[in-house]
C-alpha cells in the first residue's frame, strides 16, 4: 500500500471535491439560467398584448366620459345641498308590526270598509261540460 495516497490532507481535499462535484450541476444550472433568464414569451403573452391595448382604449374612453376632476369639483357643492336639506319623517304603515299597539291604534283610527256580499256560485248544467275529445267547446 502506498502510504502517500492516504493521508488526512488528501481525505480533506477529496471531501470538498466530492461535495463540489455533487453541487457543480446546480452551479452550472444557475450560470445557464442567469445568462438565459428571460421571461419566456408564450402564446398567452402575445394574445394578452392585444387585450391590454383594448383595455387601455376602454379606460381612456371612460376617463373622457366622466373625469375625476369634475366629480371632485361637484362633490363640495352636492355636500352643501345635502347638508342644507331637512330630513322629513317617513310614514309607512306597511312597516308597522302586526298586532303591535301602533297597529291596533292605526286600525282603530281607520276601520276597514265592510266586505261586499259574495254572489252565489252558478249551478253548472251537464250540457255546459266541455267535450272529452280534447276539442274546444263551442262558444256561446
Amino acid at each position, binding site marked *: *500500500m*502506498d502510504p502517500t*495516497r*492516504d*493521508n488526512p490532507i*488528501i*481525505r480533506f481535499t*477529496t*471531501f470538498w*471535491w*466530492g*461535495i463540489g*462535484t*455533487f*453541487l457543480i*450541476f*446546480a452551479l452550472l*444550472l444557475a450560470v445557464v*439560467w442567469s445568462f438565459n433568464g428571460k421571461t*419566456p414569451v*408564450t402564446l398567452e403573452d402575445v394574445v394578452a398584448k392585444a387585450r391590454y391595448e383594448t383595455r387601455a382604449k376602454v379606460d381612456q374612453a371612460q376617463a373622457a366620459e366622466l373625469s375625476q376632476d369634475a366629480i371632485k369639483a361637484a362633490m363640495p357643492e352636492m355636500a352643501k345641498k345635502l347638508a342644507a336639506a331637512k330630513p322629513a319623517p317617513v310614514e309607512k304603515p306597511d312597516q308597522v308590526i302586526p298586532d303591535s299597539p301602533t297597529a291596533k291604534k292605526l286600525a282603530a283610527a281607520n276601520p276597514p270598509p265592510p266586505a261586499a256580499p259574495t254572489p252565489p256560485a252558478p249551478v253548472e248544467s251537464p250540457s255546459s261540460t266541455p267535450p272529452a275529445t280534447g276539442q274546444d267547446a263551442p262558444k256561446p
Partner: protein
Amino acid sequence: MSSDTPISTAQDALTRSGIDRSLRHPVMFFLMSGSAWLAISMLLGLISSVKIHNPDFMSDCATMSLGRVYAAHVNTLVYGWGMQAAFAMILWLMARLSGKECSMIGSILTAGHLWNIGIAIGVVGILAGFGTGMPWMEFPPFAWPVLLVAYAVIVIGSFIQFRVRPEGGAMISQWYLLAAMIWFPWVYLTANILLHCIPGHPVMAAGINAWFKSGMVFLFFTPVALGTVYYITPKVTGLPIFSNQLAKIGFWSLAIIAPWAGMQKLAGAPIPIFLPYVGGAATALIFIPACAAAVNNLRSILANRETLALSPALRFTFAGLISLVILVICGVFLNLPNSTLKASQFSMAGYSAEILAMYGFFSFVIFGAAYFIVPRVTRREWLSRRLIRWHFLFSVYGIITVAAVALIGGYLQGTDQENWELPWMTAAQTGAAYAVAITFAWCMILLSNFFFFIHLTLMWLRLGRRGPNPTLLTNPHAADALDSAAH
C-alpha cells in the same frame, strides 16, 4: 511486487475482515430498512392493483384513493427500497474494492435515519394529498433537499475511499459505482431545481419529469446493479470477466447514450419534435451497454453451471441479468415513436417496464448481493435454504407474471385507446382483466419479500447459523449421493 504468500493472504483476510466489521451496522441498517420499505411498497402495490379492477375497494377512504396509493407504492419502491439497497452496495463494494475500512459510521447512520424520516414524511404527505403529481417525484417539495443532504453524507465516505485506494487502476465495478454516485446528484438536483425552484412551461415540466425517471433507472440503478454484478460474478464463479474491452464499451456506451433517453414519453406533446425521437432512439440504443454487460457476465456464469445451481447469490444475479436483457428488448420494441409507442405511452405497458427495471433487474441483483454480503458482515450463515428458495421462486414467478401481463395487457389497452371508434371505457375494461392477474402476482411477490425480510431480520439479530460452510440452494452432499446412486 506482491505475491500470494501465506503472509499476504492472511493480511488480505484480516483487511477484508476489518472492512466487513466496520460496515456491519451501516450495511445491515440500509438493507433492513430498505427491505421493510420494500414490503410496504409491495402492500401498497397490491392495494393499487386491486383498486384497478375493483374500484369500490376502500373507496370510502380518501387516503387510499388510487392516485395516492399508486404514487406511494412507486416512491417507496424507488426511494425506500431502491436507494437504500444501493447505499448498502456502494458502501460495501467501494470499501472492499478500495481496501479501506469505513471511518464515518456515525454520520452515515445519522444520515440514514434522516433519509428514512424524509421518506416517511414524504409518503405521509402523498397519502394526505400533498403529492406533486409528477411520477417518481411525488414527495412534497420540502422532501428533496433533505434527501439530497442525506445522500451526500452517506456516499461521500465512499468517494474518499476511492480516492485514497492503494495504487493501481480502478476495477470496472468501481467505475460503475463511482459513476452512479455522481450521476444521481446530477439527475436529482437538476430535475428538482428545474421543477420546484425555477418556474417553467408545464409541458417542459412533464418532459423533465420523464427524463428524470429514465435517468434514475439508467443513470443510477443500472450502474449500481452492474457494478454489483461485475463484483459478484467473478467472486462466486471464480472466473475472470470474459472481456475487459467489452466491459469498457458497455460502460462508456451507457454513459454516452443513457442521458438522452426518456423524452419519448412525450411523443405527440407540443415540444420540439426531435426530442421524442432522440429519447426513443437512446432508449433503444441502451440495448448495447446492457447486452455488453449481460454477455460479459453470463458467459462466466454459464461456464460454471454447477455453481449456478448451488449459489443463491449467483442464481439471483443470473435472473437479474436475464431481466435486464428482456427489459432492453422491450425498450427497443415499445419505444418506436411511429408505431408501438402510442400503445405503450398511456397504458400499463410503461408500468411493466418500470417494474421490470426496478424489481426484475435491480432488486434481483441486490438480493443476490445481499445473500453474498450479509454472511460476511454478520459472520453468520443464512439459516434456511428453503426460505431462500421460496424467496427466489415466488419472486421469479411473481415478476414474470407482473411484467408479462402488464406488457401484453398494456399493449392491448393502448391499442384500444388509440382506436377512436371505441369508447374509452372499452380500453379500461380490457386492462381490468389483466389487473386481476397482476394482483395475484403482487401477492406472490409480497410473500417472497416477507420471507426475505424475516430471514434478514434473523441475520441482523445474529441468529444465523454458525459454521464454515455457506448455505446453498441444494445440499451438495445429497446431490453427490444422488449422483453416485445414479451411476
